[in-house]
């Protein structure tokens, strides 16, 4: 499966990533991929990724431009985004 991931604000700045295309083998992991599982998967990249995605910072997820919770299922072709709680207005 192929997905697109966007990072914003503190995450983008610290991870030095604004967007990436991620390809995963079409196995049991991919077919049951959730926001939480994807965060844990990406967190294995390094200590910084671990700290930003699975650490103390609250990270919100969106799928195809809609805010979702950690249990939301991700499917092939989805646009996923990770960002800190919003601070506009």
């Amino acid at each position, binding site marked *: 499966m192929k997905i697109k991931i966007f990072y914003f604000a503190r995450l983008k700045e610290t991870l030095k990533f604004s967007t990436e295309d991620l390809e995963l083998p079409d196995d049991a992991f991919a077919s049951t991929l959730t926001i939480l599982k994807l965060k844990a998967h990406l967190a294995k990249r390094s200590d910084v990724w671990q700290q930003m995605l699975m650490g103390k910072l609250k990270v919100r997820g969106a799928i195809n431009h*809609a805010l979702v919770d950690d249990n939301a299922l991700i499917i092939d072709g989805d646009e996923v985004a990770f960002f800190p709680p919003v601070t506009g207005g």
Partner: protein
Amino acid sequence: MAVSVQTEDFDAGLEISRLRNARKDTGAVVSFIGLVRDLNEGDQVSQLTLEHYPGMTEKALEAIVSQAQSRWAIFDAVVIHRVGTLQATEQIVLVAVSSAHRSEAFKACEFIMDYLKTEAPFWKKERTQSGERWLDAKSTDDEARERWHQ
């Protein structure tokens, strides 16, 4: 409904006039303007940079205004939110709502701001004398939104 995410400044007077002139049975226009303060958490703030999630931001704002429209009998609403780098005292956001009577417009305007603050994907970073820092979300903003569920 009009929603805009833009770098350029806006003319609140013009937007209010548009709402006023759109229909003759308009009895109330309530507006809110958010500004860049030069002071935050005791530190002097020289500028503010607003980042957003293009594509999602507009959808989120439209969904918030739609919710307000289904809750109250309002005629129209305008939301303009600026992004990019802003200086102290500059305008950040405008929410203006028209209706027949003031009560609906007051409530809808506050509802839109409370939801914008907690659900629209904008992030603020401010520059102070000690450098730049991302602002943290405030629990008081979540509480303000939760009031609308009660």
